[in-house]
């Protein structure tokens, strides 16, 4: 949208929107609600956590908590958490992307809208209910386990277990795949039908269209959606807590144990340093996400 169009819009509207300084004021007014809201309910708590992470138990300034982040078993927990996030993102991004494509390209409007709402609800499942659902289905005496047994396959003897790293990846996919559908659908939606038609008119086959136009255009959005799934799995807490008993070392669980446990009571500030470490890692994943997204924006408009 050009500046001329913007100002023509404004001229018809309220008079307070005319001048150059008015534009900065406009920016401030438009962004203010969001920034104030996040400032109070997100940044203030985050700052409290960051502040405490630099305190020792006696209230003195210290960097010891951060030094401890690199020691075992925290280092293992960091590696496992990163691994879990990566695995979950890979395992969920591909089916999610395929599903999003199929729904966006071939689904009716009503279906697309229904899926959007259903995905929104599923993306928020987690914790004890989700854990129990999977125990009921794939636990040692689960219904799916029983079905497999009927077909002659005992998955537990074969080495499968729900309460392992890969079991957790499977459970996470229950909310990760819907998340992928929600996040990736707009990109597909933007892949205009006109481009396919134009390519066809110029003589391209279906696979040529995809190789030269479709995939390159979708790839950035796919990557940024992937990074979002990564961040989501990395900080997932309630589900991991409900599923395991600590034999899988995960950072959010460690933080929970130190902040809200019954055994260790004097490492609260270490827990906060861990939380800050998690924030840093996730931010590092977010930055490429945003850069890629902005580039993908241009053709999506």
């Amino acid at each position: 949208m050009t500046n001329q169009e913007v100002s023509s819009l404004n001229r018809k509207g309220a008079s307070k929107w005319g001048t150059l300084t008015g534009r900065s004021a406009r920016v401030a007014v438009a962004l203010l609600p969001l920034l104030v809201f996040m400032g109070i309910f997100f940044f203030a708590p985050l700052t409290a956590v960051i502040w405490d992470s630099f305190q020792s138990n006696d209230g003195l300034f210290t960097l010891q908590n951060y030094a401890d982040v690199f020691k075992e078993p925290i280092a293992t927990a960091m590696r496992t958490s990163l691994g879990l996030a990566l695995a979950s993102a890979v395992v969920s991004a591909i089916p999610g992307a395929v599903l999003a494509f199929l729904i966006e390209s071939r689904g009716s409007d009503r279906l697309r809208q229904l899926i959007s709402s259903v995905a929104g609800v599923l993306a928020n499942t987690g914790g004890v209910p989700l854990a129990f659902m999977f125990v009921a289905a794939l636990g040692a005496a689960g219904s799916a386990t029983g079905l497999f047994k009927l077909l002659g396959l005992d998955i537990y003897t074969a080495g499968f277990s729900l309460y392992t790293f890969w079991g957790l990846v499977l459970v996470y996919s229950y909310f990760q795949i819907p998340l992928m559908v929600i996040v990736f659908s707009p990109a597909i939606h933007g892949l205009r039908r006109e481009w396919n038609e134009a390519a066809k008119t110029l003589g391209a086959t279906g696979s040529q269209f995809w190789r030269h136009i479709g995939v390159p255009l979708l790839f950035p959005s796919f990557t940024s959606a992937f990074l979002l799934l990564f961040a989501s799995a990395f900080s997932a807490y309630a589900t991991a807590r409900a599923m395991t008993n600590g034999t899988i070392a995960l950072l959010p669980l460690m933080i929970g144990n130190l902040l809200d446990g019954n055994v260790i009571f004097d490492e609260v500030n270490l827990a906060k340093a861990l939380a800050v470490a998690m924030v840093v890692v996730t931010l590092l994943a977010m930055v490429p996400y945003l850069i890629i997204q902005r580039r993908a924006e241009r053709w999506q408009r």
Partner: protein
Amino acid sequence: MKIFTRRQLPLTIGLFLATLFVLFPLVSATEFSLRQPATSNYGFANYIWFFTAEDFGKYLGISLGLAVVSAIILLVILVPTVIWLNLGGARFRGLVEFVSLLPLVIPVVALAIGAQTALPDFAQTDEIILGFMFAVLAMPYAYRTLDTGLRAIPLQTIVEAARGLGANWLHTIFRVVIPVVRSTVASALFMTLALSLGEYTLTSLLHWDTFTTWVTTMSQSNILGAIALSMFSLIAVFGLLLIISIFIRPTKSNVVAEEN
């Protein structure tokens, strides 16, 4: 049949598999909730147990109310911002997206502890604070959904038309734009509903009682009842969703809709 055409078949298969994957754990868990050991058959005894429990309506009402509050907060904050982003503030899209994704970077337990320390006492004395915290948790999804929805409509045209006819901004947003994207608004509402009925960590750490904490208290000695309550939270939202989606008109598609 239309869903079995060469074109539609992949979608049909995909949806079938997805539905299987979604429903299987749900049905397995629900089977437990329908067990009635006392009479050795299946039935709704566990559901009746909590439906008729003293505070069921009260706590369900609290959670539903909080869901509505957080949905309203999200809409009030995000809709004007997203409209502005799509009309002329495109330069700031990156910043807004970044800010909207921030709630994903911090584990909920740390956010709760931070909130206890950082928020002033008066902010912690009314349960409505949970509405604000839920809005924070739902922010990433809500922003995404609203942005998608608002980009799918000819926003510029509608706004120009409304303003040209003399409507002020408030009128334009609430009486013109929002009704056009009401399916998007409904999606955002369902997300906050699902979140509110399932959120436990933040609620309990901030010392509040909602439906979720009530479920935990009630579940203490009644295992099958506990399962029934968990399933109810999920099924209730889905049920509402199906009912309301019948009444909401969807927005149009513009996607690659070709033979491949």
